[in-house]
Every structure is written in structure tokens, then in C-alpha cells.
């Protein structure tokens, strides 16, 4: 197959430029209003910074196959549900935030364990 994977930052950079132009045009209209240029200009800046980050980060990623992703990640599910419980605790009380927080710690531990196993499997596969 010919060709290689081209960088992905140009569309985001172009998008950021579009937003910058829209902000620039707005200067004629905005007057003393702060909210509008702040939101729009912030979005433009965010897009341009992200495009820059994509441009400078050229980390190579495995292309073929599925890498060493596990088939499933119960720890991720556990962690997400723990965060949801913590969130519900904001309305229902500190007790639920604490339970959710404890569960989240276990979930983070599980995800770290999965990532370690994944890295070990990757090393094994490369050998």
C-alpha cells in the first residue's frame, strides 16, 4: 500500500482559524460585551493549541491488530459507576460521596493493575 498516515492536525488548525476569523469579525459588533468574545476567542485559542499539540506529538501508534487491549475492563466500569455514585452523593449526602470515593480508589487500583498486565503482555508479545 502506498502512502503513509498523514498528520491529523490540519483540520483542527483550520477549524481554529475559522473560529478566529469569526471572533475577529465580531470585534466590529461586540462593543463592550465581554462574554461573547471571551467564549468565542477562548474556543478558537483552545482549537489552535490542541492542533499545535497534535502537530508536535508524533508518538507512533501500533497500526496492525488490536495491540494488547484487554477484551474487557471491569475495573473501568467499576470506576465509572463509583464516580456516578459520588456525583449522586452531592445531592444525597456526604455518606454516599465517601462510599463512592472508596469504591473509586478500588477502581483506580484495578485500572492500574490492568494497565500493568497490558504492558507486560505487550513486552511478551514483542519478544
Amino acid at each position: 500500500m502506498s502512502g503513509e498516515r498523514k498528520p491529523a492536525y490540519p483540520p483542527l488548525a483550520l477549524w481554529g482559524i475559522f473560529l478566529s476569523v469569526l471572533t475577529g469579525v465580531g470585534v466590529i459588533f461586540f462593543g463592550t460585551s465581554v462574554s461573547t468574545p471571551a467564549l468565542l476567542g477562548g474556543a478558537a485559542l483552545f482549537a489552535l493549541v490542541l492542533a499545535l499539540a497534535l502537530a508536535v506529538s508524533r508518538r507512533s501508534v501500533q497500526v496492525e491488530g488490536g495491540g494488547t487491549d484487554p477484551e474487557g475492563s471491569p475495573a473501568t466500569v467499576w470506576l465509572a459507576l463509583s464516580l456516578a455514585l459520588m456525583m449522586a452523593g452531592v445531592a444525597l449526602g456526604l455518606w454516599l460521596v465517601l462510599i463512592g470515593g472508596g469504591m473509586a480508589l478500588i477502581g483506580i487500583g484495578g485500572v492500574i493493575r490492568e494497565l500493568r498486565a497490558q504492558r507486560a503482555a505487550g513486552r511478551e508479545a514483542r519478544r
Partner: protein
Amino acid sequence: MSAISPRPAVVPLRPPVGSRRRASLLEILSSTDHKRIGLVTMVTAFCFFLLGGSLALTMRAELQKPGLQFLTDHTYNELFTIHGSTMFFLFAVPVVLGVGLYFVPLQIGAARLLWPRLALAGYWLFAAGGVLMYSGFLTQQGAASFGWTAYFPLSDANASPGVGADFWVLAVILATTGGLLQSVSLLGTIARLRVPGMTMLRMPLFTWSQLATVFMVITGFPVLIVTMALLQMDREGVGIFSASPEGPVTYQHLFWFYGHPVVYVVFFPLVGVVGEIIATFSRRRFFGFRVTVLSLLAFSAISMAVWGHHMFATDQVSNRYFSLTSTALLVPAGIEYFGFLATMAGGRIRFASPMLFAIGFVLLFLIGGLTGIMVASPPLDYHVHDTYFVVAHFHYTLFGGTVFGLFAAIHYWFPKVTGRLLDERWAKATFVLLFVGALATFIPMFVLGSEGMTRRVADYLPLHHWTTLNTISTVGAFTIALGVLTFLVNLMRSLRLGELVGPDPWEGQTLEWATTSPPPRHNFTALPPIKSHTPLFDLREEGREPLREVGLEREVPREEVPA
């Protein structure tokens, strides 16, 4: 599955791994496979669509004639709040991201998602958010009743006390964070996992539309998450929006900075799907592909700069600027419509069910788009602000755009996901019922709105003579429900009895059709050369059979319907 193709034109990839044994529910719900994450996201979102739709039917039944029939004002407020919230936060956004999670990696030749745990966590946050939002109905003061926009100070702790309202705010944070995580995973996948040869301009239209969507999500969604966190803090007694007289307008700025782009988030990917369906069923490449890609980027960028048109009536925004940007949306939208029509104009069209839904999308969305231009004009907006005219307008964009686009996508990709075709007769019945239902439900609302019927009100007076139009609208809503019912019957029936098809029943143009149906765990055994955004179409033009090129000719059942 056939062996890896030895042909030099083909890039051999890792063969599928894993057995064909039926996975348990736990395995499915914790899977890192993008297809499973995408599918469970879509199925869960569709369940919320049914819930939100049933709330709409209840409201339409109440509004069929003047007087309060079976709802109180407060219950009606809860219903329209949770209906709108469900349709945005729990159906439309997750469902389009779910479609993206399933098909974007397939279209770019990737074997997996980048950061699949983010996508999985995103699903669970969204699902938990949905449960939390609906839990509000079980609380003493009921669910949130301040509208899906939660305008301040209507949403503060004095005007809307109770745990149900808190649940709503927190649920929005959860669901929106879920969508954001899934979008980050999609962005990373498109940026990093495209197969060699898949340059940006060789990505299919759907992937491009999904990329533009992701740009809007990563820019707009964090603003809503922060806004909702601030709102909750305000509800807890920390003065944020209540601290100054400008607070309510600041809230509106922040909300609509998310709230307008999200309307585009929920139909943009479906513009891509519809474009691909139109090209496939017209048997030609999409007309003006590169210009359309540029217009998608411009469209999504301009959509970030139009939020103020929701605030014309506040007199606190630059109406001239937001009117200008809102009207400017016509240009990229026109380019896309021109692309749709020009593709069909030169093609040999097959009117199969996906194409019918795609045409339905084009027609109904046009009504939404044109009336959008009307409300982009401040004088007209003053007249119809907060009336049923606006309700009709956005339902043509959301129902005509999101629902018809989604049904087009489902009918198009169902054979890829299941290996079976949906029954055409049932599908056409669904199309007719949904199309007629959409016209009957929402056209009367334009008239009602311009005559002054305000939205978010459970009752109206007989002297207004609005009963006939409301009755037509209610009958239309139940026609839509019947259409959805026929779809569900077709879905259940076709999952077991649908005609078996091979990898490519429609003569598709993009890479997802170059693998088995359903695709294996890591998607491909081999890929064809990628010279454009329509690699399979290129092969056919060269007189080569795409499935043979990737070693899948034996996967085609003998009884497959000729495309």
C-alpha cells in the same frame, strides 16, 4: 473467515482473535471492543428515545383539546423538562457518538479504538446519568421542571427546590462528561489509528462529519459541565449566578455556547451517513467531496458562533452579529444540499429503505433549516419567540435530522452489524408512518406558534380555536409512535429471521464493507489499497471485485440479494 490474502495489493493484517462463543452480558457491558461499546451506547440511547417519546405522547394527549385532562401543570412541566433533556442528553448525543464508535474505526481501517477505556467509562457515565435523571420522578418533589435549558433563576434552589432538580443537574454533568470522553477517544482514533494510506482527505464523509462533530464536542461540552457545576454550587448556597444582576444572562451565554452547537452535534454525523447512503444508492461517488468536507468544517465552526440567536429577546447580545452568523449557516448547508442533489442527479438511484430515509432526512431537515433562517432574523424571532413555531422548527431539525438520519443509518448498517437484512416491506411502512407523522405533528405547530400559542404550557383556551390543529398534531404524534412500533417489530423479526447477507449487500464504497458481517474482534483480515475516500468503489471501477481482493468471496451467501 478466509485466510489472509496473499495478493500484493492487499495489506495483510492480524487475523481475528477470540472464539465465536456467545458473550455474557457482563462481558458485553465491560468490553473494550469499539463495536460493543458503540452498540450498547446506541441501544441504551434508543431505550431513552422510547422513554422520551412516551413522555411526548403523554403531553400530546393532554394538549389534544383545551382544559386539563389528566395532568397537572407541575407534572406537565416535569414531562417537557425530562422529554427535552432525554432527547438531547440521553438519546441524540449518545446515539450519534455510538454510531461513530462503531463505524469510524471500521471506516479508517483501524483495529480498535484509541483509549477504549475512556469510551467505556463514557458509556457508563452516560447510562448512570440517565438513571439519575429519571430517579427524580421517585423523589418527593418530583423530577426537574425548569425546562431542558434550566434557565437561571428558574433553576435556583428557591424556584426549583428538591432532590429531583439536583439529580437533573448532576445527571447532565455525568451524561455530558460521558459524551466528552467518548469524543476524545474518537478524536484520538482518527488522529492516530488510521491505516497507512488513509490520508485525511481519503477518510469517508461519515468519518469527516464525525470529526467535525468531535471538534464541537470538545469545545462546547466542557463549558456545559462547568456551567452545571456552578449551577449546583449556586443551588447549594454559593452565590455564583445569583451574585450579580448579570448572572441570569451569563448563565444563558454559557448554556447556549454548548446548547446551540449540540444541535449540530446530533445531526452532523448523520449528514455524513446520509451523504454516503445517497452516493451508494446512486451508484456513484459523492459529488464535490472536498468542498463538502470544507463546508462541514466551516459549518461546525460557524455553529459555534451563533448561540446568541437564542438570546435575541434578552437584548443583551449583539443581535446584528448573531443574525449575520446564523444566516451565514446557509452557505455551508447549501453546499451540502447541493452535494446531495448533484450526487443523485447523475446517479442510477435504488430506492431501498436506507435511501428512502436519507431522502426523508433531506426533505424534513430542509423545513427545519429554512425556518431556522426565519428565526435568525431578530424581528421575526421577537414575534415567534417561545411559541410553538420554534418548537416546530427545532423538531424538524431534530426529528427530521437526527431521527430520520439515524433510521437511515440503522437500515444501511444493520446488515453489517448483524449479517442480516431488515425486512424491506416493514421498513417502508416505518418510513411512510414516520414521514407522514412528522408532517402531521409539526406543520400545525408552525401555525399555532405564529398565532401565538406559547410553548411549555399545559392548557389553552377554547376561544383561541386551536383545538383542530392540536388534534392533528396529536394524531401525528401517535402516527410516529406507530412507525417506531413497526420498526421495533421489524428489528425483532429480522434479528432472527432476516435474510442472511454477506459482507457487502449494498455495493458499499467504504472500508467497513470490506470485512465480514458482523466484523471480527479486530475488524479486518486484509484491506484493499486505499487511493481515495471510496476504496471499494475504486476497485469496482478498475473491474476488480472488492470482496475477492480482501479474500472474502467465500463469505457471500448464495441467496444474497444482488445489490
